[in-house]
């Protein structure tokens, strides 16, 4: 310890001119502040800015120059025996020189910054913000990192050993390994884990370089090539060990399975068929989000991007789903189909905007943020047509047939209805709906008729889906909650007060058939139907408990109830009723697990967290 301080003091003494230079640079901001052409309106701004620039530049320059010379130059000039022929241990020599180098960086930075900080008072904090302390710490950390890296490069380069080829190869391998570790964490949205990985590898690198420096002097002493060899061995062995440990952990993190998902679950499911996307966090994996496309019927699964729960677009037949996949800065569309182990990479890339899929999953329509509507064919991977929408506002679209895309475009004062014919490339306005408010709507299975209601209004109308013309106003008891088409073409409407919620069943032309009392509910919405039962998601007025209820529309009996914590997104982007009957409803249970519930039997089964 004493010898380390003696050596540190010697280093300081040798490099005292650096401190003199720092003092000169500390005065410079104050001189600049009094020069009229430079200082501008606020001399204090000039002091703060120039002190920061000079301090940073000086600290970085001192770091790089000192790092490149404090050991490497003594070795290459044959001066290390000055220390080793005296009773100074290798550790004392290393840590003495290292301490001096680091204190030199911090000290010179302080020499320049502190007078400016004291002189500018509150002006400094106003200008640099409250995070200035952290900025200074980050800056010094970077400078010290540069100091250590410069030492390594200097030792390697000055040894003039062919071993430098190995070092270069090892550095490249480390870089590739780090990239391989980072990519899956980026794909999993694991910002916290990435931060911890960076900190861990940073600490490992510091240990490798600081420990390697001590090791190189202990093993190599005055011989520059043996110093190089020893540093190289310690550095790359330590980094390899750290990377192996990190790889083991990252490997475990990314080996997540649907059953592991226990927290922050996000899920969406097809309205037809058993496809569902489930994403969530798992124990011990911090914020890494595993996301899976599941076929709940046969248990097969694919890994997908963590935001796929929102971005998945299920085909109406329930056989396919289009999910965007981010690869670097490119997001490409992949089509997953039941029974096929590999997705089809469509070659279609998007940069924001909306997209829909045809009923059979064979075509994709994308609407870019700039209002370009394009139709792609999945099988041939080619664009069939692209048109610019006249008024690129909020658009909801659907494939009426594979060759016809209908668009409902929100415009000032209502909604325009348009159709794009893929074969003729013609985009035609077919109708409109006047409304000062946002329009909610859904279509029947054929796309000929639609149910329309204005936001926060109880009025429900049956309209022509192509022209928007009102066919009939449907009777409701007020306080309309939800309305939707059933698979057989009939209409289901939920309305009523919190004390008496009612499910109305109407014929396809809007003629009321019968009403079913749901009891006292705070809210209620229609999930779907299996031909016999309508599944309603509601909140019990008394307990506040959310429920799924299977309402037999033949007997008007609520056959099964299932308490849930949260529902799973389903049919959000589907404007028409599903083709297949609803067999199971996915929901999030009290434990944060995803479960599947059968409205026919009331049975549940665990999908995640089992």
């Amino acid at each position, binding site marked *: 310890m*004493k*010898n380390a301080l*003696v050596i540190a003091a*010697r280093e300081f*003494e*040798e490099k005292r001119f650096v401190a003199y230079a720092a003092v000169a640079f500390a005065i410079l901001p104050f001189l600049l502040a009094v020069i009229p052409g430079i200082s501008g309106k606020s001399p204090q701004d000039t002091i703060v800015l120039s002190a920061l620039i000079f301090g940073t530049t000086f600290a970085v320059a001192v770091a790089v120059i000192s790092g490149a010379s404090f050991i490497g130059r*003594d070795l290459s000039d*044959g*001066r*290390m*025996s*000055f220390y*080793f*022929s*005296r*009773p*100074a*241990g290798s550790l004392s020599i290393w840590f003495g020189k290292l301490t001096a180098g680091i204190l030199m960086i911090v000290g010179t930075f302080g020499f320049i910054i502190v007078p400016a900080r004291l002189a500018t008072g509150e002006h400094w904090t106003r200008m640099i913000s409250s995070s200035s302390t952290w900025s200074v710490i980050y800056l010094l950390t970077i400078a010290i990192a540069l100091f250590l890296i410069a030492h390594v490069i200097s030792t390697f380069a000055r040894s003039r050993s062919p071993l430098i080829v190995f070092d270069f190869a090892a550095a490249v391998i480390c870089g590739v390994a780090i990239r391989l570790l980072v990519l899956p964490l980026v794909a999993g949205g694991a910002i916290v884990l990435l931060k911890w990985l960076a900190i861990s590898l940073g600490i490992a690198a510091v240990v490798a370089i600081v420990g390697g420096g001590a090791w190189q002097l202990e*093993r190599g*002493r*005055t*011989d520059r*090539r*043996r110093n190089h060899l020893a540093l190289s061995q310690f550095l790359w062995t330590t980094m390899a060990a750290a990377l192996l440990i990190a790889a083991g952990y990252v490997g475990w993190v990314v080996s997540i399975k649907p059953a592991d998902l226990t927290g922050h679950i996000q899920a969406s499911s097809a309205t037809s068929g058993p496809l569902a996307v489930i994403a969530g966090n798992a124990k011990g994996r911090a914020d890494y989000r595993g996301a899976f496309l599941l076929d709940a019927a046969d248990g097969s699964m694919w890994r997908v991007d963590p935001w796929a729960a929102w971005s998945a677009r299920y085909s109406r037949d329930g056989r396919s789903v289009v999910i965007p996949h981010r690869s670097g800065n490119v997001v490409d569309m992949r089509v997953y189909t039941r029974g096929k182990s590999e997705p089809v990479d469509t070659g279609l890339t998007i940069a924001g905007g909306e997209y829909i899929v045809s009923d059979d999953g064979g075509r994709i329509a994308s609407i870019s943020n700039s209002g370009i509507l394009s139709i792609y064919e999945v099988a041939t991977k080619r664009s069939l047509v692209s048109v610019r929408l006249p008024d690129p506002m909020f658009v909801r679209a659907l494939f009426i047939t594979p060759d016809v895309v209908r668009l409902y475009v929100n415009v000032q004062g209502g909604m325009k209805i348009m159709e794009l014919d893929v074969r003729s490339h013609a985009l035609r306005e077919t109708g409109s709906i006047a409304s000062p408010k946002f329009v909610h709507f859904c279509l029947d299975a054929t796309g000929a008729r639609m149910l329309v209601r204005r936001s926060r209004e109880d009025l429900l109308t049956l309209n022509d889906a192509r022209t928007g013309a009102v066919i009939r106003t449907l009777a409701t008891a007020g306080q309309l909650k939800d309305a939707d088409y059933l698979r057989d073409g009939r209409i289901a409407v939920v309305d009523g007060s919190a004390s008496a919620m009612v499910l109305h069943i109407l014929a396809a032309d809007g003629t009321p058939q019968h009403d079913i009392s749901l009891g006292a509910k705070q809210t209620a919405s229609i999930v779907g139907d299996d031909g016999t039962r309508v599944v309603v998601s509601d909140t019990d007025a008394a307990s506040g408990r959310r429920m799924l209820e299977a309402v037999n529309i033949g007997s008007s009996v609520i056959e099964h109830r299932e308490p849930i914590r949260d529902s799973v997104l389903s049919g959000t982007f589907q404007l028409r009723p599903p083709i297949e009957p609803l067999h199971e409803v996915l929901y999030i249970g009290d434990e944060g697990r995803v479960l599947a519930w059968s409205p026919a039997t009331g049975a549940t089964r665990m999908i995640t967290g089992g």
Partner: protein
Amino acid sequence: MSDNAIRISDLTVRYGRMIAVDHAALDVARGSVYALVGRNGAGKSSLVRCLLGQQRPQNGSATLFGEDAWSRRTSLMQRVGVVSEDADAPPEMSVAAIARFCSRLYDKWDQDSVEARLRTFGVPLTSRFGSLSKGQKKQVSLAMALAISPELLVLDDPTLGLDVVARKSLFEEVIGDLADRGTTIFITTHDLAGVETFADRVGMMEHGRIVLDEDVDALKSRFRRIRFAAQPVAIDTAALRPTVMRSWGGGAEAIVSNYDDVSFERMRSASNIGAAEVQAMSLEEIFIAIAGGNNS
């Protein structure tokens, strides 16, 4: 406590495929002066670095006072003064700063002796080390090495760069004085004439091997130059182990490495060669004879 200040056993140093020191072995008794000679590249400096614990040999060991030089270097250096082959102090440091730095590292330090020696050498304390001549740098190193009253002084080619006066002063006043006081001295040098008067033992390295390790007196007593007045027709000098045999003037000259008077007289009478002059040889002449003999 070991009787030897230095023991080198089976020491081997390699640089890649090149062998710098090849299974070298030697002992240096406490209080003796050992001179290691050899041509440039013979392996002397590598051996010295191992001896000072600055380099780890691939094989064998170097011990100082019975302790391993590599693993016990830090504590051993409290007892060892070193003058390196290349003056190694940072060039920006003043001589006074070097002395101040060294004084903090050693348990015992005689600052007065440093200042007195530097005055004698004519080296100002305020001089920057980098501005000194090669000889002055050696003198500064020597002054530092002696400030701890070392039990062992290792001098790696100390006369390199010294002028004639300084060299004479080094050998006669400094090393001679230390030898008289019982300090063990290990010196590598080309200046055989300088060490001849006080070296107790001499070693010679060639191509990494120690080809000679012997007391100086014994070495000098067995080497002789014999000059024959006439070219001998058939003489049997085998018993004297000639290293060199060549024509000289009208006669011949032989350098023998196993001379003794009895053998010489027996040879002369048996060969009937008439007049022959027997001359003692200096260390330098012996070194040249051995080096030449080994090369031939």
